[in-house]
């Protein structure tokens, strides 16, 4: 069986959990050795300068093809990169401000001369939807030139591409919902994005949701019959055992970490309020907010207002190794997300022997037992949990041991196998 998969990012160029999830899933599939994967992504990611330079001059964009080899499983997947101006995880407004002053021309797709070259010419419109339609055009070409049995599209930006490929090839379409507009926007749903999501879900032959939470949103907000939706939980890539590699903290104090985009969806303000309460009772603790986002400045202001800046630190966006460094230093990891379809970071923290506190409003809370679960708004419970883990030794000890063991049992191969079952159900 062969699957044509549309994503928008792939390691190492990732901006959020989606790239990690796609990588893990495809690797799991390679290990499973039942399904061949053709993976399509736009090459350009959330990095605005990079994309701007590459795109402006491009009127003849090649689709490059390369193979990715997974060292340990001796399997490969085909990997395509499509040059395009797709910026993952931004609202339309942000996308618009990002582009409006840079592009005045329009772009349109013209016919391709062969399977691997598309000519871009003309101007970009200030419209994200146009971008997505462009991606869909490319998808059609790829669909025409490849043999596959199923189409698998990850999240709304790729749904039109998936639909285009489906129309072109008449193969079944599976859409994978990693997040919905309701999670991203916190209530201010963009009707156009909603329409694309809904169209994708309705056209799809089957839907994969990353959690029961997301499944419920799909049923309630998009009116999709429950029977069409399967929940497949994410997993984590195993990390080498590094228990012995002690890391020297600069300070002899406890560290409590928030790691993620500083946006409304992630609930950073609740973390700050909880920090204030903890700091009232103990002094030898520092709070770190690692990440960036549109709420970063208001958060810095709030921390200053509360007068806890001497114990509260902002690191800005962390990448790759820095994330691991940060986790190694952490004594408690908190994810107070207001709405989190899945949330892979707590699992990574658990891999590094870090006790975690997660909100009940996260999909990951559905599968994890060895974590403290609180409501995102309950800052008293959050503060109490932080204090408890920092002060009552056996609790941290329990989480370190049992938590690590628990995540080690979450394997991508199981997720891949569940996804394969979904493919089989639509064939």
């Amino acid at each position: 069986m062969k699957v044509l998969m549309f994503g928008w990012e792939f390691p190492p160029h990732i901006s959020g959990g989606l790239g990690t999830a796609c990588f893990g899933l495809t690797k799991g599939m390679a290990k499973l050795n039942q399904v061949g994967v053709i993976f399509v992504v736009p090459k350009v990611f959330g990095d605005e300068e990079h994309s701007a330079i590459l795109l402006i001059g491009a009127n003849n964009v090649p689709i490059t093809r390369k193979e990715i080899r997974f060292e340990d499983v001796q399997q490969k997947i085909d990997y395509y990169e499509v040059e395009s101006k797709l910026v993952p995880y931004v609202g339309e407004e942000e996308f618009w401000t990002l582009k409006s002053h840079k592009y005045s021309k329009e772009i349109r797709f013209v016919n391709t001369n062969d399977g691997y070259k598309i000519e871009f010419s003309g101007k970009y419109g200030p419209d994200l939807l146009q971008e997505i339609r462009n991606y869909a055009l490319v998808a059609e070409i790829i669909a025409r030139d490849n043999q596959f049995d199923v189409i698998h599209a990850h999240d709304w930006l790729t749904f039109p591409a998936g639909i285009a490929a489906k129309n072109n090839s008449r193969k079944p379409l599976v859409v994978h919902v990693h997040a919905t507009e309701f999670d991203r926007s916190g209530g201010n749903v963009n009707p156009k994005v909603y329409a694309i999501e809904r169209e994708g879900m309705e056209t799809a032959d089957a839907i994969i949701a990353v959690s029961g939470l997301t499944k419920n949103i799909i049923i309630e907000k998009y009116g999709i019959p429950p029977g069409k939706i399967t929940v497949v939980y994410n997993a984590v890539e195993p990390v080498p055992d590094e228990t012995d590699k002690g890391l020297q903290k600069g300070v002899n104090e406890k560290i409590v970490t928030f790691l993620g985009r500083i946006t409304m969806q992630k609930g950073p303000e609740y973390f700050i309020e909880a920090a204030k309460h903890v700091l009232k009772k103990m002094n030898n603790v520092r709070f770190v907010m690692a990440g960036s986002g549109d709420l970063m400045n208001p958060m810095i202001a709030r921390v200053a207002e509360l007068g806890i800046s001497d114990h509260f630190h902002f690191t800005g966006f962390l990448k790759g190794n820095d994330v691991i460094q940060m986790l190694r230093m952490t004594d408690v990891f908190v994810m107070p997300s207001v709405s989190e379809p899945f949330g892979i970071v707590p699992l990574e923290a658990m891999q590094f022997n870090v006790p975690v506190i997660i909100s009940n409003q996260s999909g990951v809370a559905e599968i994890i037992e060895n974590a403290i679960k609180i409501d995102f708004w309950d800052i008293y419970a959050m503060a109490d949990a932080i204090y408890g883990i920092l002060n009552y030794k056996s609790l941290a000890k329990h989480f370190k041991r049992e938590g690590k063991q628990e995540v080690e049992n979450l394997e991508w191969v199981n997720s891949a196998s569940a996804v394969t079952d979904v493919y089989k159900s639509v064939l």
Partner: protein
Amino acid sequence: MKTVCLFFQIHQPFRHRRYRFFDIGNDHYYYDDYTNESILRNIAQKSYLPTNKLLLKLATLLKDKFKVSFSISGLALEQFELYAPEVIISFQKLAKTGCVEFLSETYSHSLASLKDKTIFEQQVKLHDKIIFELFGVKPRIFRNTEMIYSDKIGAQIAEMGYNAILTEGAKQVLGWKSPNYVYVNAINPRLKVLMRNFKLSDDIAFRFSNTNWAEYPLTADKFVNWLEKANPKEELFNLFLSYGSFGERQPKESGIFDFLEKFSMQVANHSKLKFATPSEVIEELQPVSAESVPHPISWADNERDLTAWLGNGMQKEAFEKLYNLRHQIAKCTETEMIKDWNYLQASDHFYYMSTKYFSDGEVHSYFNPFDSPYEAFINYMNVLSDFKIRLNTFVPENEVENEISALQKIVAEKEEKIRKLEATVSALEKKGKMKKTRLK
């Protein structure tokens, strides 16, 4: 003749309110009065009162052919006094019929037997005192918290003067042997050991209303028939149940009361079956052998051991931290402190911290006011931290604090002295002034 020994356990803990760490040192009230009252009122209405009413009816009707035994924890009795005094009155009425035996246990339904001899003894004495005050009897038979028992615990109980102890007929200790005989303690053979027939007991307590059970529906005829058909040499059926089984775990609608009534009538009027209290059992029946229990057993979960209370690191830490205070509390005379100390010892607090999700998690969560064991642990440790701070003010923990409090005492004394002296000085000064004016 075969004997049926009916025993019911009654216990209710004082559940803690959400006690956040900001409360430590600020707020010294730990209890969720609303929850405690509503749970107690609810179970009293659904279970304790109607069952007592039925038992009273049976006792009046069958006279001394009907026998039943109870152990009621001190914390449960305290809550009855607070929230449902009519329950105590109905027990007193039952006690007057002479068909009832009250057994001894720890006041707090605590795990003290696993930690400290002195505390354990105190707990038992306190319990026997309240039983005597309320029912005018001195218990002779002991039943430890949740049937926890080991050779050592048995030996201590014998030393404390009790004649017998009740425990679980756990498979890991009985093996091929039957619980339907009287056994004796392996260290001190003067102490009789009555072992619960968990199959028959749980048929009533757990499976009675389970429609998926092969024996459903369970009727009194059927149950009595099982007893009749048992090995003719077996002499004793120990049916030890939690009292809440009647009306609470098995709701009234399941016909549990009807079952209890019919069953009791049939046994009482049976030619080959009869009821007996534990005291009567050990007088009438000869023990068959000693039963060795080197590691503590209990009636909890599938493992029938201590893992429900002391299975994980959190439970062990909380347990150790609690009983680390025992030397300090021994010197404390504050009534409020001793009350809290008794409430803190309830085994339930440790039960809430259990992480045995998969096998018995359902039972654990059913009785658990907390959403997770971690919450339960944090909450308990917060309460304990506050309790410790208070205890330190009454009974200083170590030498430094001892010294500080001694110094504070001296300072206070000196200050008092200075105040007195100042008063004398100023009085003298006044006198002197008056003299001067007079001289002028």
